[in-house]
């Protein structure tokens, strides 16, 4: 189990234990955390699980997969630290990871 903190756009913070091997998106959905839609269910075919990864974590998580940036082009208000949460794999070394959500997903 790895602790991940999701911060809604309003500032509301949720810290939950997510099973290693799941994605950050699945961690949010399974814990009913609002702000991540994941319309396509994790297929990297939409951009509705978009999160901003806190600077100090950005280089520690697995690199973007091919095509992820193409989808992020289509996300709501993409930034330098944007990721699709369905592409971030949860593992022990992400313990304490903080991601925040954009104002909306679609």
């Amino acid at each position, binding site marked *: 189990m790895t602790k991940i903190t999701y911060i809604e756009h309003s500032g509301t913070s949720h810290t939950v234990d997510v099973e290693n091997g799941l994605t950050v998106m699945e961690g949010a959905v399974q814990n009913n955390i609002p702000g991540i*839609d994941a*319309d*396509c*269910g994790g*297929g990297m*075919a*939409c*951009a*509705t699980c978009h999160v901003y990864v806190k600077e100090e974590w950005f280089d520690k998580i697995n690199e973007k997969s091919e095509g992820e*940036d*193409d989808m992020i*082009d*289509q996300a*709501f*208000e*993409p*930034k*330098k630290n944007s990721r699709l949460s369905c592409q971030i794999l949860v593992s022990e070394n992400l313990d304490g990871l903080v991601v925040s959500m954009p*104002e909306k997903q*679609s």
Partner: protein
Amino acid sequence: MIKTDALIIGAGPTGLFTAHQLKLIGLDCEVVDNLDKIGGQCIELYPDKPIYDIPAVPECTGEELTNNLINQLKPFDIKFHLSERVDEVKKNGDMWIVKTNKGTSFTTPNVIIAGGVGSFEPRKFSVEGQDKFENKSIFYSIKDKNVFKGKTVSIFGGGDSALDWAVELSNNCNINLIHRRDEFRGAQATVDKVHELVKLNKINLFTKFQLKKLNGSSNIESIDIENEDKEIKNLKTDYVLGFFGLIMQLGPIANWGLNIDKKTVEVDTEKFETNQKGIYAVGDICNYPGKLKLILSGFHEGALAARACFKLARPNEKYRFEFTTSSKAIKSRLGVKSD
């Protein structure tokens, strides 16, 4: 007013197979979809991505699956209303009156929602003034390119639509092309063409910039764009075009009096009927205990919803279950010879 036994909303794989099932048991149907082509998410989101879990099809792409489903419908005459969104569903006695945004109206005892995650809409700019300038100075699709002749047009996006229009309009417009990063996701040949036109000063390229502000009173006069280092540039422009792909919105479905939870519609698992008699939901948009968002589940749900439609469309007849391998009636509908 078009009269039909069942109206299907959504021309994705589930909507297509549901249409097949309706025609097979002898009912009429028509299909409405907001996209300009048949196939739904399979064609819009992942036409080239292989799918491995369609029964008896070891591997196929979204496009191949769609083409196969269209082929399967060939024996039947089914009217598709594309580029139309169903806006209104209202009860009129035992019938439903359905209206689209293009003014088409239907009267039918059965409405089958096979809407996936809703309708595809262009993603819009999120800056202030978007609503005021949309369809005047801001566009997300182009109907008549002559409007832009001799004007300055600022195009945002990094995919094929943005690049194709930048190339096309550079013939007789001043083009600013703005994209949030250096890499483009468009076809390589188009990307090369854009870079060539940039060298010839036919396109002004601004990468790592995004739209910050719209300036103007009744029409846009200029825009401010900002990069990651907070550097701001002001560009004089007559028009702004945004090509950020399509997003899915539940849209008007939310207003039809259905039980909706987390963008999905609650149904029973016998008829896949919603809380409204004669309105069904199948495929990704329906929700019931154990629901799997798989294409194969949509096929099953559509087959059952189609049988439920029979009761309301032919109240005086009794539905009889038949196999395609042996039924003469089904074979005649398919236009194949009986043994």
